[in-house]
């Protein structure tokens, strides 16, 4: 069966390489997530991006400032650790450095052009990405060496929790389709590594996780225009992204939408929306205080900044609970097998584009 499957995959890959003709058979194509990074515009010149410098008060620095003479562990180390989980217990105490500049990566989420919005690198106005202001000058988030961007992304390929699939159906062709359905699933299989052992090759197979992954399944509607998939926002969306072993964390979005450039082999672009502040904080603090020290990110200080910069979904007190943001996402084509196909012995039904 495996030999047969390999041949099927190869045949399908060859068909896909011919262009979108192969889509005609099933009008469907699947992709598996390979990379996730927070979408923060940066140049090679850190002084230009961050004229006040990079973040300066991380856990080590705040600890040293607060407890220059040490003290009992309960009043020092444990006090700081408890603030990580109860950040409301103490107000901000240290200066925070925000990213400057007017160029930003993301999507115009509200359809407006406001004073705090960015202009995209291609000149689009009204880009909403307040998270860039909060974290754009944290070394941990600057590419390519920023620790969270680097290691958090490594887990995308290695963790089953992060095996997020996107299936696009009702596709006329990959250049233009007026009305497509997009479904997000969790896959159960390792990604197909290429000959280097580092990259992910198209043509792998992914079984859908229907046992534990049902809550991950989400449906979006969209269209493909000039090779770019643009979905309508869904009111509440989730995208799994565990950034540490055995700490399964989710990103909870409001108005989540996808904007992906499609080819038969890849899909690259953005996931954008308003990130629930509490969800984002929980996600980030899945990293230990030690790890957060890499970027001088003090969790309690960061929490207050996140709340301060939140720009959507006010609560009953008028406090904003979500922050505009975007993730760059990269995916490669994968054959997504559905549960009924999994049960078939021998030749398997693959609902992706093939032959």
């Amino acid at each position, binding site marked *: *069966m*495996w030999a047969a499957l390999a041949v099927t995959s190869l045949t399908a890959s060859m068909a896909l390489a011919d262009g979108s003709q192969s889509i005609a058979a099933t009008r469907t194509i699947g992709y598996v997530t390979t990379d996730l990074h927070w979408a923060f515009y940066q140049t090679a010149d850190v002084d230009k991006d961050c004229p006040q410098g990079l973040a300066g008060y*991380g*856990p*080590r620095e705040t*600890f040293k400032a607060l407890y220059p003479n*040490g*003290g*009992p*562990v*309960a009043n*020092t*180390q*444990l*006090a*700081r*650790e*408890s*603030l990580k*989980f*109860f950040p409301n*217990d103490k107000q901000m105490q240290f200066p925070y450095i925000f990213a400057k500049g007017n160029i930003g990566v993301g999507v115009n989420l509200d359809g407006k052009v406001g004073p705090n919005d960015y202009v995209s690198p291609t000149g689009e106005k009204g880009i909403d990405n307040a998270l860039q202001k909060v974290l754009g000058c944290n070394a941990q988030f600057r590419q390519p060496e920023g620790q969270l961007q680097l290691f958090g992304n490594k887990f995308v390929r290695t963790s*089953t*929790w992060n095996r997020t699939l996107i299936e696009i159906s009702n596709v006329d062709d990959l250049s233009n389709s007026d009305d497509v359905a997009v479904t997000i699933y*969790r896959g*159960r*299989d*390792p990604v197909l590594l290429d000959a280097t052992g580092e990259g992910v090759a198209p043509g792998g197979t992914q079984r859908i*996780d229907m*046992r*534990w*992954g049902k*809550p*991950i399944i989400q449906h979006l509607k969209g269209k493909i225009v000039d090779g770019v998939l643009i979905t309508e926002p869904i009111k509440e969306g989730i995208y*799994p992204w565990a950034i*540490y*072993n*055995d*700490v*399964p964390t989710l990103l909870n979005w409001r108005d989540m939408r996808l904007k992906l450039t499609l080819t038969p082999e890849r899909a690259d672009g953005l996931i954008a929306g308003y990130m629930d502040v509490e969800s984002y904080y929980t996600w980030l603090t*899945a990293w*230990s*205080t*030690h790890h957060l*020290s890499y970027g001088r990110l003090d969790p309690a200080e960061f929490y207050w900044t996140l709340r301060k910069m939140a720009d959507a979904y006010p609560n009953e007190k008028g406090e904003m609970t979500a922050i505009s943001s975007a993730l760059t996402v990269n995916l490669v084509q994968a054959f997504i097998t559905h549960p009924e196909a999994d049960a078939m*012995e*021998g030749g398997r039904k693959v609902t992706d584009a093939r032959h």
Partner: protein
Amino acid sequence: MRLIAGVTGILLALGMGSAAAAESSVREAYVDVPMPPGFKVVSTELEGPVFADSRGRTLYKWPIVSLRNGYAGDPKDKSACEDVVTTKTGGYMSPYPGGLGLPDLDSRKSCVALWPPVVAQADAKPVGDWSIIKRSDGTLQWAYGHQPLYTSHLDQSPGDVLGGTGLFRRGGDTPAERIPVGPPSALPPGFRIEGTLNGRMLVNDKRYSIYVSDADAPDKSNCTTEACLQRWLPVLAPETAQPRGEWSIVQRSLGVRQWAFRKQPLYTYMRDTRAMSYDGGDEPGWHNVYAQPGPAYPKSFTVQNTTYGDVLAERNGKTVYFYTCGDDSADQLSCDTLDSPQQYRMAICGGGDWARCHELWHFVPAAADEISQGSVWSIISVDPKTDRQAAEGQAGAVRVWAFRGRPIYTYSGDEQPGEFRGHSMGEWQGRRNGFRAFWLRVI
């Protein structure tokens, strides 16, 4: 269960052991290694066979490990556990500096008080892998495999392994744990045993799961069709392999020999993509293999399907958590028991606020008709005003479930069965000082 374990341990210690006795009580068989007089092997629920002293107290080692900022534990043939009360942190766990004052110094015990060295008499002689080291105070201490041996003040009865476990150890994030020491498992080359909450799991030397099929007969494989063999790979025995104890050999065809354990032919699963997988057991009629089953959790408990896998839950479906803690001293003493400093737990469960901790994290009450199921899952009495262990029947005390003698918890942030919002809450994702869910299987 505890009595059976004790009896089994005695039988094994008397040399009646290994395969036959272990099989009759479904206990893990072990190699009958030479031991000094006064020591024996006790079969335990969670850790399998362990060495014990003449009073049945489990023996532990404290191997040196690399933490984030240095090493802690015993190097080869040397004990780092001294009879001195440590007063300051060691700064082993970044980003915090050492030299911070440890809590409850008026009642803090020394390493030796909590982990008494296993004393060797002056006329003791090394035997096999057992050797004798001289401590810094001149006394003699038994060692096994060059690791000094200790007992735990927490172990009260034969078969107790409450002092430490390697079950949850992970790199330099967890404390330098004391680990029970036992004889090698009785396994042919190419196999090993891995401890899990579900039992002592049989795996191959690459840690991939071993499976058996209901369709096979004793010492006969019925997985012979192409369809079966495309999914299941018989674990082949070399030409020179001989049957021994619980291990036998099935002749698949001329010159093709397959290992069998307890008369069941063994396989690996072609679709397994990672070590210690349970995926093959999802195929009807196929099962993972355990040298012995894990300790039965309380009958009122449930298993819940979550987005991350299967988790243990209490009767109402709320995820249950254990709290684990090791301090940052050179001794790496446990701070997760009810007789240890509570400041660590309070910092995580309530931000130092006792009332908030109790509001957010709840003990798991035992019903009046529930009884302890052994030393791993037991019912203890806790004084809710102090969170200290109380005498059974003490006025105001509550009966709660405990795992390895430590209370377990539910988290008020979990509103529905299958939620696990409390998982990994704490220092170092809860591995150093915090809460972890009881995962029986993860995706």
